[in-house]
């Protein structure tokens, strides 16, 4: 999610550093069509100058990447950048159409993680509770209205600010009510969440013990 100004030539053309000459050519043609002033896909999103500025970047990217020698010089400068600020989890997906066909490949990015999130079994932490709340279209205040638990505590539960939460017996009750409210099995979720809570408070007790010695 880099701003346009920080994107490299490959990201501007939405192709990958290993792209062939033909792939770069196709990516360039698609980018030009997409960012033409009267482009059907863009006119309602662009504001003054957006498309022109992008076209300039596209032309520059193409000029360099379509020339073998300029491209390898550019790649050499890119190596350093790439290690510095391109997280491996964010591949620039090559999504340029292959002559009248759709690229069949689907990027499996993050799908595995999402599968884990939507499953109603497994371990529950604050982030998963939030995920289920959002999926149900509920705000913290909605849950607060139903459960009569203060929004602050509900937020702490999601953020796992264990130290700021009251005694475990209350937290267990809060989490049960929260989970029921978002359509989960309250008892099960609370049991799972409390394991994290207990682990953390054990850790904190130990810390205090050492501090006091």
């Amino acid at each position: 999610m880099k701003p346009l100004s920080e994107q490299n030539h490959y990201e501007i053309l939405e192709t990958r550093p290993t792209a062939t000459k033909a792939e770069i050519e196709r990516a360039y043609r698609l980018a030009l069509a997409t960012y033409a002033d009267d482009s059907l896909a863009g006119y309602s999103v662009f504001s003054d100058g957006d498309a022109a500025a992008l076209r300039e970047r596209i032309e520059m990217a193409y000029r360099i990447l379509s020339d073998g020698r300029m491209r390898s010089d550019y790649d050499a400068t890119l190596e350093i950048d790439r290690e510095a600020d391109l997280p491996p989890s964010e591949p620039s997906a090559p999504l340029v159409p292959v002559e009248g066909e759709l690229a069949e490949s689907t990027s499996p990015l993050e799908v595995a993680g999402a599968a884990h999130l939507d499953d109603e079994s497994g371990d529950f932490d604050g982030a998963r509770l939030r995920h289920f709340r959002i999926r149900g279209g509920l705000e913290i205040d909605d849950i607060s209205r139903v459960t009569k638990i203060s929004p602050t505590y509900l937020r702490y539960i999601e953020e796992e600010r264990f130290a700021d939460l009251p005694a475990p017996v209350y937290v267990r009750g809060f989490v049960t009510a929260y989970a029921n409210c978002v359509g989960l099995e309250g008892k099960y979720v609370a049991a799972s969440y409390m394991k994290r809570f207990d682990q953390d408070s054990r850790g904190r007790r130990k810390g205090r013990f050492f501090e006091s010695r």
Partner: protein
Amino acid sequence: MIPVGGGKGGVGKSFVVANLSASLSRMGHRVVAVDGDLEGANLHTCVGVPRPRTSLADFVAQREEDLGKLILDTPIRNLQLIAATDGNFIAAQPTQSRRVHLMRALRELDADFVFLDLGAGTHAAVMDYFMVSDEGVIVVAPEPTSVENAYGFVRAAFYRRLRLAMASHDMRKIVTIAMDQRNERGIRTPLELLREIQTLDPSEGARFVETMRAFRPRLIVNDVRTAEDIKLGFSIQSVCRKFFGIEAEYLGYVNHDESARLSVRARRPLIDVYPRSDAAIYIARIARKLLANGATGESREGSN
């Protein structure tokens, strides 16, 4: 569960839902197609159930608590329907608590795929249904009105998610301001909003990025006539990525086909009446793609 929206009416949402459902059921999967459009129900006609006996309206009005009892058989094997006919014109939309109830009941339906055909517009009720999945489908036709509405839909769906994800009241307020397209802060796109929130509150910024990454709407271009129309899907994908920071997936396109119109007139899915037509073949291709992605979706729903 796959919600299918698109903002604009008449782009072929119900046609796409009916035919994707029929296509998957022909491949042997158990499918329930749910008409979520209580104010303009027509999915029943597309799947060949002329006069539904029961409807989602019965659940909304609390006449029936068991959603399973509203499932109707269709002429197609493995394909069942929950219609949305005979709604109450004054109180068609369910209340918020009823909606949560409905979402849960939908998730518990016993099927391999549940399609949810949404109404037009970006009304709160429509957007809530779209929220059941991070990977809902948006149907767009290659015409300016439809494309504009599709962007509006993507934005609305994302901002709604975002508002729920933000922990602080102030940041939620900024999201609400940004939802107004002519807001005084001059925030036009989700990416601009991200910059604003990142500067004001880095931890909320991190939550923003997390929400943005999880949201992966999928795109179908319907009624395609030219090669340019096909590329539209890729172009929308590019604009979403560059201007919104949102990764959309282009699932595929369905070409303009006279037999599609004839099938609607025959009140049966195209896949059923003209299985060899071009459009039917393209729809089957999208269905196979859903199936390939669904490998993870099945394990997700399998535990219910």
